[in-house]
């Protein structure tokens, strides 16, 4: 991990709130693994507001051109700042951070389930799995058509996917968790990997718990440092003995055993 200033080689608007930044960085392209993230400074020259860096998973890595990208939703002032950045400007970021995702040796089939912007890290993971000759089924759920353009990125990675949206404006109308629930038998050999809003994670946890199926999840929490020093980003984990422990999402994760996550 390093503090870097990388040139933005492309800034794309996918829709009203969804943007992609492509950044030149041989260092990231060489060292980053799927599910790792970068911590981005989102304030202008000498401005201290917003103060903290914002974490974003690495979305794509193009080793040929030494360019990686992040895909992000505009939420507050940090992402608003990022949406304003243009080609040629410099992105100040720290990375790669987090443990990343290590492909479990004993699994060959993977079901990746993403809700909203949760699809971002799953794309790089999917790519990586496929490069390692794994079978991947990708399920994505959205509120609306915000991610419409994103499908073009996905289709480059794989064809075996299902897209749902609550209002039916993009893909099939419905909730991906219902689809999962109804297809559990089909996917019982699959390693589940989930990333999305809290409600979705809770939902999936309880669906899978009923069937004693395991799953991994990418977790989020407010971060100050991103490198394990502030103790800010903790997640409550109930381990096998039933003990509750705080784990740091940044350096112990962001991938956790979903079944051990305490949501209450």
């Amino acid at each position: 991990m390093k503090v870097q200033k990388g040139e933005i080689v492309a800034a794309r608007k996918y829709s009203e709130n969804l943007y992609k930044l492509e950044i030149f960085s041989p260092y990231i392209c060489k060292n980053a693994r799927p599910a790792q993230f970068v911590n981005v400074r989102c304030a202008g020259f000498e401005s201290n507001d917003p103060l903290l860096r914002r974490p974003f998973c690495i979305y794509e890595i193009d080793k040929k051109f030494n360019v990686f990208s992040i895909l992000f939703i505009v939420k507050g002032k940090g992402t608003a700042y990022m949406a304003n950045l243009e080609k040629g400007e410099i992105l100040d970021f720290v990375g790669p951070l987090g443990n990343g995702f290590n492909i479990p040796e004993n699994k060959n089939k993977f079901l990746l389930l993403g809700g909203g912007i949760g699809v971002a890290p799953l794309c790089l993971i999917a790519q990586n799995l496929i490069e390692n000759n794994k079978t991947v089924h990708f399920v994505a759920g959205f509120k609306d058509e915000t991610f419409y353009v994103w499908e073009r990125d996905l289709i480059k990675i794989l064809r075996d996917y299902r897209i749902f949206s609550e209002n039916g404006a993009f893909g099939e109308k419905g909730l991906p968790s219902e689809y999962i629930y109804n297809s559990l038998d089909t996917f019982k050999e699959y390693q589940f990997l989930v990333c999305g809003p809290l409600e979705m994670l809770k939902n999936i946890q309880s669906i899978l718990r009923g069937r004693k199926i395991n799953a991994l999840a990418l977790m989020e929490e407010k971060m100050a440092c991103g490198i394990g020093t502030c103790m800010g980003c903790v997640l409550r984990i109930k381990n096998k003995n039933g003990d509750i422990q705080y784990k740091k999402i940044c350096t112990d994760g962001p991938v956790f055993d979903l079944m051990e996550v305490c949501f209450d």
Partner: protein
Amino acid sequence: MTDFFQNSGLAVKLGGIILKNPVIACSGTFASGLEYNEFYNISILGAVTTKSMSLAPMQGNPPPRICETASGMLNSIGLQNEGIDYFLENELPRMVEAGAAIIVSIFGKDADEFTKIASKIKTYEKEILAVELNLSCPNVEKGGMAFCALPDEINRIVSLTRNILKTGIIAKLSSNFNNIPEAASKAAKGGADAVSIINTIAATAFDINTFKPRLGNITGGLSGPAIKPIALLKVYELAKENIIPVIGMGGIMNWEDAIEFIIAGACAIGIGTANFINPDCGRKIIDGINDYMRRRNINDINILRGIVFKNSGAII
């Protein structure tokens, strides 16, 4: 730029503690420094203060523990740590290996706990530059900030540890009570070499959609640039009294801020929140101070200390 020769005008003395330069990493924002050693060689720092270690491991407070505010952040970590034993056995050796000048921050719920921790440190005292007594954490129910309401307790804790340890002793005080000079006097009488001011300022934030506090612990401590002007006044006021050497901290982001604290009277300065934002800020601040002194032909940083008093002495 940060070799010994150029740093030679940077050495400062805090009571019996000598630092090769005035730049210290603050407790709780630098872990034990090893993560930062990947960004730069932490042995160049004046000192590295560890997170505060307690007698037994502490789990800390429930999440969320972090909340950003305008030019600042709230934290309610609640001193999560593995306990002093774990630290001394597992982390201290690695810090020594990294070449860090080590300040061990310790926290006890009462004088007795402080004494016990100090006794454990005793065995390792040759490897340690100083012990910082965290008397000011706003995020724990017992002890912490409460000590600062009772300056006599500060005196007692300082003398007890002073009697046990040959290392330097630093008392870290709170700005949440309007009595820093009094607390500092008591610390000085107890035998402290220096005081660190300020710890985070008690504060909070609420979510207007859920009506819940933004921190699991409800309240937290405010740090970062937002508090700099407040911290600076506390440093100025205390340093002017000339009671005890002051380590100034609160919102320092860059070398300009560091110099500002020094001219306001700080002997040394602490960088806290800035480490989260720019993990290499320690190195940059040392370089910046060096360059500033060279540009101005200042060959001893101690000349700068409290230089503003001359321009502001009369009025306050």
